[in-house]
């Protein structure tokens, strides 16, 4: 063993820099894992430490409508300090700028949050807005309407001074504000008409107990009764678990993404070790000749690989610690708590072991060739090329597959997911390799014989023995694939929204219009020469019975697993005598009108919700329409195109039954530009403060902002793969340096100029980059097509300019890295190069 160690050290002389380069391709992958897992642990600790601030209280009641008296009686019996928060969407109007925007209102009465605080700028605003009868507002909203602290905001009929901007609120990550900016104000002075019938609002009652009662036990005692009243409950423990679960999923997903970088690094190691071993064949032959056993010679190179893995793992852990410092700023928007930096030894240990394991597994395949080197190569070097089939290789491939699956299972805690991940990874790598080989095969088959020497030589370099083409195409191709797919999907979704808002389609949605406001709102639109594309009545209702069984019975029957959100939810239904453009009848007959006194009413139900309710054509449904039960049966099933900007419904009643029920209206219109949209919204909010408006351009910008935040995180992780790809590229260029030097020198000796040698290399990297990015692009077009068709169910669009730009950029980068690492080879005289590289 001592001799093996000694020889491993001696043999590495002159190659240590090269060995360091091999392992550097592992460093980023390990770093990504260590950073994400450390961060995950720190985050769990932070969630545990700050658990009470996540809820902001010890216990909460939640309901979609005002709490019934019976619930308030239970609340009174609990005692403690209580605080009510009501959340709903409403237009926020800024008189100074005459601007209006849809906002998420949080009207608070009492001391919520009891734990943690509503962090604002200035700090005291979050504590005093109720006493000062003011509002604190999300910064994004202030920016959108160009308002500042000190201005006035009007919600409904009431105006409030803006006292500060929100930095962080309990129960919410900042990400929430991207969807809908928040406004905190005192409940006591809220315009009560905003909470009128039909308006959707969430009511939350918070408790703080000064005694040390067991809140979980208290909750268990009251929860069943509250559930009957459609009132939910939350405790610190539950909120903590929910956050932990969500955040754990987030960091597990990210670490699986980071693992791709490690796998790429592994491929880089495999490829570099392969070249390294090829260069050591004669040495191995001599050692075998001198009496070294196969075990000893293999041991020398296995020791070197282990050394590489150990150094790579350690370096990765250190870089991971540094990356961990960056992560909070990357993920900040998604986190409900402040995560502090801390060294997680378990994450570092895991990263180190995985880094070492991946290095060894991937190095093993090329290394086992050492065992089979014949001592004959010492006297006849041509014997080095003789290879035999290596049955151990399949065992190693098996270990690699097992390792990837084990990691995915370990990271996700789910065997099915682990297998799925391993299969997906292998499929992506397999497809990349396949496309890469296809491109190479095509080029070879249709090799441009008439090109000039430099171009032919550069292109042919891709097929030479010991080339790194496949590994580079895999790594650079994978990076391109990840980034480009993300980009293409983002573009596609955005253009889909743009299309939806296209010519003739509505782009302004006005809702919560009370029946007596309907004509007034319409006349404002008409005064501004805007069309009324649709005017729909909406009646809120809940299911009382399904197929003769009450909702309570279905809920109580836990064995069937039938009860779902579809049974529980509040339905907003309409009545009309026709289908709309976004609907398609798939079953039964659409019945448009019915006698008001009919015993049972035919309704049309959307196809997906049919599945959720486990019902079929002809089944009966009883609806509780604000206290009145209406019996119905499913007379038709509709398929609805939810992507169209239109009022779409799960359930459509025929005209004649609901006409007299309490209802509100939604009006759709189309504005020619943002200015007209803003003017109309301001005018409507001024007269009818409870009416809300959604501007499709606002949805577009909101979507863009949301996607940007998610994409940023995914890009950050994909960056590890891309950087690893380029390290692998740099490594491959350097390991093949010896071969290149010999060829360059030979070419020069035969009369090639420095310029020609340089050009040949440029052409080689040009094709390498071009093929790699084209491979990635081809797959990303396929991937985004599959996502468009199977996941988002929309027409596929490819922006050719974006794909072209990506190909140009990554190719240029490949050429730059290739030439940078080859510098010195092409511009040094043959003799000097030979001496230096010998």
């Amino acid at each position, binding site marked *: 063993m001592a*001799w093996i160690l*000694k020889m491993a050290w*001696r*043999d*590495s*002389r*002159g*190659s240590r820099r090269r060995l360091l380069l091999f392992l550097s391709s592992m460093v980023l992958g390990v770093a990504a894992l260590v950073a994400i897992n450390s961060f995950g642990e720190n985050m769990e600790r932070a969630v545990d430490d700050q658990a009470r601030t996540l809820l902001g209280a010890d216990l909460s009641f939640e309901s979609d409508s005002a709490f019934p008296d019976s619930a308030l009686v239970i609340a009174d019996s609990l005692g403690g300090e209580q605080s009510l928060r009501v959340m709903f969407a409403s237009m926020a109007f800024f008189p100074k700028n005459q601007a209006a925007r849809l906002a998420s209102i949080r009207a608070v009465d009492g001391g919520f949050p009891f734990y943690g605080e509503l962090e604002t700028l200035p700090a005291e605003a979050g504590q005093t807005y109720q006493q000062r009868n003011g509002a604190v507002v999300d910064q994004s909203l202030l920016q959108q309407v160009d308002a500042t602290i000190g201005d006035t905001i009007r919600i409904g009929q009431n105006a409030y001074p803006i006292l500060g901007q929100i930095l962080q609120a309990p129960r919410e990550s900042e990400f929430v504000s991207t969807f809908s900016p928040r406004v905190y104000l005192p409940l006591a002075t809220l315009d009560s008409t905003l909470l009128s019938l039909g308006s959707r609002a969430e009511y939350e009652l918070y408790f703080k107990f000064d005694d040390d009662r067991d809140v979980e036990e208290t909750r268990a005692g009251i929860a069943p009764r509250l559930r009957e009243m459609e009132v939910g409950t939350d405790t610190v423990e539950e909120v903590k678990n929910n956050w932990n679960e969500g955040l754990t999923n987030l960091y597990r997903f990210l670490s699986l993404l980071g693992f791709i970088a490690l796998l790429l690094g592994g491929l880089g190691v495999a490829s570099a070790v392969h070249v390294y071993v090829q260069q050591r064949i*004669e*040495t191995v*032959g*001599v*050692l*075998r*000749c*001198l*009496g*070294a*056993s*196969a*075990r*000893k010679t293999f041991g020398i190179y296995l020791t070197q690989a282990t050394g590489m893995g150990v150094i790579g793992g350690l370096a990765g852990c250190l870089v991971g610690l540094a990356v961990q410092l960056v992560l909070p700023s990357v993920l900040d928007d998604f986190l409900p708590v402040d995560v502090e930096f801390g060294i997680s030894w378990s994450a570092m240990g895991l990263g180190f072991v995985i880094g070492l394991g991946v290095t060894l597994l991937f190095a093993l395949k090329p290394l086992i060739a050492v065992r089979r080197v*014949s*001592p*004959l190569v*010492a*006297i*006849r070097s041509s014997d080095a090329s003789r290879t035999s089939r290596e049955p151990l290789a399949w065992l190693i491939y098996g270990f690699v597959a097992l390792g990837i699956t084990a990691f995915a299972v370990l990271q996700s805690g789910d065997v099915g997911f682990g297998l799925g991940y391993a299969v997906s990874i292998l499929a992506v790598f397999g497809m990349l390799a396949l496309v890469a080989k296809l491109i190479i095969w095509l080029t070879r088959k249709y090799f441009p014989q008439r090109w000039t020497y430099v171009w032919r030589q550069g292109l042919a370099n891709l097929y030479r023995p010991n080339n790194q083409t496949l590994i580079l195409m895999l790594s650079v191709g994978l990076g391109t694939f990840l980034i480009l797919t993300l980009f293409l999907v983002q573009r596609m979704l955005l253009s889909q929204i743009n299309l939806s808002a296209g010519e003739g389609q509505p782009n302004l949605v006005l809702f919560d219009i009370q029946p007596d406001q309907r004509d007034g709102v319409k006349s404002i639109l008409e005064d501004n020469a805007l069309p009324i594309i649709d005017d729909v009545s909406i009646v809120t209702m809940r299911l009382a019975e399904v197929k003769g069984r009450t909702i309570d019975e279905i809920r109580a029957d836990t064995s069937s697993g039938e009860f779902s959100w579809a049974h529980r939810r509040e339905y907003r239904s309409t009545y009309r005598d026709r289908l709309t453009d976004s609907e398609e009848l798939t079953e039964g007959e659409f019945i448009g009108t019915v006698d008001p006194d009919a015993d049972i009413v035919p309704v049309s139900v959307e196809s997906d919700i049919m599945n959720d309710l486990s019902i079929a054509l002809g089944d009966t449904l009883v609806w509780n329409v604000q206290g009145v039960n209406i019996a119905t049966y499913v007379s038709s099933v509709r398929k609805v195109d939810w992507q169209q900007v239109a009022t779409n419904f799960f359930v459509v009643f025929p005209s004649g039954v609901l006409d007299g029920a309490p209802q509100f209206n939604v009006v759709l219109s189309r504005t020619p530009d943002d200015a007209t949209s803003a003017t109309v919204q301001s005018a409507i909010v001024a007269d009818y403060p409870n009416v809300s408006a959604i501007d499709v351009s606002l949805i577009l910008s909101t979507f863009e902002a949301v996607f940007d935040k998610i994409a940023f995180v995914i890009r950050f992780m994909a960056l590890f793969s891309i950087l690893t790809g380029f390290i692998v590229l740099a490594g491959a260029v350097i390991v093949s340096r010896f071969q290149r030097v010999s060829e360059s020198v030979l070419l020069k000796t035969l009369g090639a100029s420095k310029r020609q040698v340089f050009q040949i290399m440029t052409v080689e990297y040009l094709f390498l980059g071009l093929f790699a990015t084209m491979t990635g692009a081809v797959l990303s077009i396929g991937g985004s097509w599959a996502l468009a068709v199977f996941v988002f169910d929309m027409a596929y669009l490819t922006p050719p300019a974006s794909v072209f730009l990506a190909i140009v950029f990554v190719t240029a980068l490949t050429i730059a890295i290739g030439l940078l690492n080859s510098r010195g080879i092409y511009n040094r005289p043959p003799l000097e190069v030979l001496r230096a590289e*010998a």
Partner: protein
Amino acid sequence: MADQPVLRVAGLTKTYRSGSRALTVLNDVSFDVYPGETCAIVGPSGSGKTTLLGLSAGLDRPSSGTVEIAGIDLGPMNEDERAAVRNQHVGFVFQSFQLIPTLTAQENVMVPAELRGDRTAGPRAVELLTQVGLGDRTDHYPTQLSGGEQQRVALARAFINAPRILFADEPTGNLDADTSAAVENLIFDLNRTAGTTLVVVTHDLDLAHKTDRIIRLRGGEVVSDLRTEAAEEPALVS
């Protein structure tokens, strides 16, 4: 001459198969080499010289026939067992020196001794290097030495385990005339001093005539096995 040969080759045949074609490069070769004897194997290119050397030294397996080194039959041995025999009984000198480029001269010489666990390898390597005239170059790497110097290091390496037999494959093939002469003298001096048996494969008839015996190969067969003038009596063609 002792009764027991150091190298016994009997009925050695080597056939390579390429698809359905069989190519016999060595056909039924037999000879014995005795302790202290020096022997040259000569023949034109493709006559099977290097194949015979490889088989005789246990670097490869014959298609048929046997090889015994120091009375040990290599036939039933696996590659690692043969490696152990080589380490203990055989020394090598190659045409292209075959020094390990990442090891210094001294470390190169030490390798065979270290492989058998010899803890005195260092001083003995220096001693041998001094003997071949490179006592002041022990820390030099192969690239820092001339061809002749590299071959002298290879000779020191070949002798460090005091082998019973030294196989030399065109030992002067890559050297100029003056250096060749010096290396040849060194090989024969060391051979005499250590009492080692020498088997040398060469094209160089001058070198061959310095040995006791010349075995001529043609087309994979022994065409003559004769004592040279240096020898006392004619050898029998086996």
